């Protein structure tokens, strides 16, 4: 479909036409089912195609009206839009399921015109989440009204070396009905789950008071954000300070957590994850293996979009994390 000057009502009409044409294409089967449980806005500076695959998988778990905002180079104040559908045919079914996708391209000069358009395009009565892949759009004052529409802002601190600056930015975006999620925290779920599982054993739980040191080993050129979040999580969970030691454990193309060891009287526990995602969990004499799935953007977002309300643990961690930056 050709790009057209942008007006919400016109885009919505194009969406209607899209559904009619999709329905006609599927006349021989059981037609098309439109699915929508939220509005998901994706802010990116790359070609929208780069997120297409992720979004294509994501809408199967979280059907949404997708609005992809692409920040392009240049100084054209106009906006361009097109509509398309993300469709899939569930295995063994004769009916396609489709989600609407609206792609809007703008330059920095056109940012001011974006909020009124987005306001007219969000799906009514459903939550709004924004996934920021663009630091410019995360920080731009012109974009503030769009950020305020969201129930949830999703950022990713992976690869960021200025941990304190990033935490300030994230904490500054929380407020009102808007909650912030960091995919760097989401990546820690399997780590945290493994630690929690170790203390399901009442005998180990009874020794938790003896925990006096947490050693966090990381790989890469700088400490990853996980080295702020994990100590904050231990502090929050234990309700008391515990000794934290950071240890460099070698090179890696991207800063990553490598090993977590808990030490103290009667405690000798560790979780180690190799580059191939295979994990080894030691608790006393018992060792077990697991796979910490490759955490693609799709998998991370899938988890985050399940938590659209309060996330008390992360909120507490976010408050404590700057201490460890």
């Amino acid at each position, binding site marked *: 479909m050709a790009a057209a000057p942008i007006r919400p009502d016109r885009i919505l009409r194009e969406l209607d036409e899209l559904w009619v044409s999709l329905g006609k294409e599927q006349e021989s089967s059981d037609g098309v*089912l439109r*699915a929508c*449980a939220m509005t998901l806005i994706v802010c990116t500076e790359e070609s929208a195609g780069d997120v297409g695959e992720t979004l294509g998988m994501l*809408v*199967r*778990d*979280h*059907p949404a009206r997708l609005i992809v905002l692409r920040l392009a180079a240049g100084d054209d104040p106009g906006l361009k839009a097109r509509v398309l559908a993300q469709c899939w045919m*569930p295995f063994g*079914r004769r009916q396609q*399921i489709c989600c609407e996708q609206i792609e809007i391209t703008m330059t920095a000069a056109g940012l001011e015109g974006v909020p009124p358009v987005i306001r007219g395009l969000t799906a009514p009565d459903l939550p709004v989440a924004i996934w920021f892949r663009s630091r410019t759009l995360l920080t731009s004052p012109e974009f503030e009204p769009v950020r305020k529409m969201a129930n949830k802002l999703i950022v990713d601190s992976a690869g960021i070396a200025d941990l304190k600056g990033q935490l300030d930015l994230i904490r500054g975006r929380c407020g009102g009905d808007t909650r912030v999620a960091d995919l760097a925290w989401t990546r820690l*779920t*399997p780590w*945290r*789950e*493994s*630690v*929690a*599982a*170790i*203390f*399901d*054993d*009442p*005998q180990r*739980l*009874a*020794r*938790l*008071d003896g925990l006096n040191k947490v050693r966090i080993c990381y790989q890469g050129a700088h400490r990853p954000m996980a080295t702020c979040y994990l100590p904050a999580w231990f502090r929050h*969970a*234990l*309700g008391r300070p515990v000794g934290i030691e950071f240890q460099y454990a070698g090179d890696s193309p991207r800063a990553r957590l490598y090993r977590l060891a808990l030490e103290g009287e009667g405690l000798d526990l560790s979780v180690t994850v190799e580059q191939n995602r*295979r994990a080894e*969990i030691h*608790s006393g004499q*018992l*060792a*077990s*293996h*697991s*796979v910490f799935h490759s955490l693609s953007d799709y998998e991370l977002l*899938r*988890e985050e979009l*399940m*938590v659209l309300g309060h*996330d*008390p*643990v992360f909120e507490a961690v976010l408050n404590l994390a700057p201490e460890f930056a």
Partner: protein
Amino acid sequence: MTGSNPFQDPIRFQRRVRPCALVIFGANGDLTKRKLIPALYRLAFERRLPPGFSVIGNSRTAMPHETFREKMKEATRQFSEDTEFVDSIWDDFAQGLFYESGDLRDPACYAAIGHRLSEIERTRHSGGNVLFYLSTQPSHYTAVIDGLGGAGLHQGNGWRRVVVEKPFGHDLSSARELDDRIHQVFSEDEVYRIDHYLGKETVQNILAFRFGNGIFEPLWNRGYISNVQITAAESIGVEGRGAYYQEAGALRDMIQNHLLQIMATVAMEPPAVFESNAVRNERAKLLGSIRVLRPEEVAANAVAGQYGPAGVGGQQLAGFRQEEGVRPQANTDTYAAVTFFVDNWRWAGVPFYIRSGKRLAKRVTDIAIHFNDAPHSPFDAAGMDPGAFGSRPNLLILRVQPEEGISLRFLSKQPGSGMTLRPVSMDFKYGSSFGVRSPAAYETLLVDALTGDATLYTRQDMVEASWRAVTPILDAWTATKFDFPNYTAGSWGPAASEAMLNRRGHSWRTP
């Protein structure tokens, strides 16, 4: 530190099993291979089992631990439908797999299991917590219970629970007898009677649908609902289970347990809290309110059927009496349809039609709530054409399988100049709104039993109430020589079933 685990994050973490061991009696059987071990492997894959989790398998066949592990590995590879098989995860899991052969009537069998459990408690930190799973033939249940009691395995340092697979007896008196034997060893809160239908996500979703929304419950009564139809149809026949099935039949195999449980879930009163006993109390009350038919009422309210041979899609299918292991004159109901009434204020006078059968037109399980007609149709009165569907009432369909979801049918104006009405359907499909994988029923139920949540398990009072509801029908059918077969494969059952509804001005909906 004592008390709860401070690292817990219920919003993000899945429910995990605490340290314990599982003993499966009948470990060489199909259920263990097809369902239990694959479900446990899935839980291990998702890191939901504790590090030292152990399983002791028991059956008569002697084999070393390693052979049992290999068999289970093969089964898991074959029957894990949507779980990647990772050798290192399996190897860890398999380290906790043990096998103790033995005759279920031999005390030495339980002594060996007890010895193994002590070792597991010492070396694999199970905390002395043990779940016994009776996956044997029902005729062995009492032997296992007696054996466990005799060896003192029903007590220990941790909790002890027992899972009993259906059937819970083959009639009311045998159900009571089994229960008495179980209660000589285990207390009621240690007994988990499994009905895997209750573990299905969509059956659980009935509770969410009814009690999580404000708009349906006000309509959920005799004032607005005309009748309720519950269908559990299978397109396949008895598939090698002929010998078992000819003794059971559709009424015992499906209606007495699964479908009455579904009916109870649809019709029960709201519990004050979503807690195991609160939910089960309401289910039990509903089952206890089902009107028990008098013998003379059975013929008008229950229909038995049996499929005969037929050609379907170019394939010649055997009739039930021609199936392997089935007596040529078997009087078994491969189809059963029953009209139940609930004697309480909410449901007085509303028929609940339940049917189940084999070799029907397709595989489907659903619940159809038929609402009353609109009290007055202005379209008829104005002489307008209400269309062919003008008098169709609203219909709410709760689909359990194969395509889980909810549909609401209502009338809409057909586009055009006239006022012609036609039914349209508003569809919610579980799979398209929640694309995430739904856990298999056995995963859910195993985790529930291992974590002590009995919400989805049946209780003895529920079992007895449902036996009471079907006993007059069973008695009447046992005394009747039916003129079987009376329906052909690929149909929707015998004509008498349709006639049963027609007498009340209703008809079966075609799923």
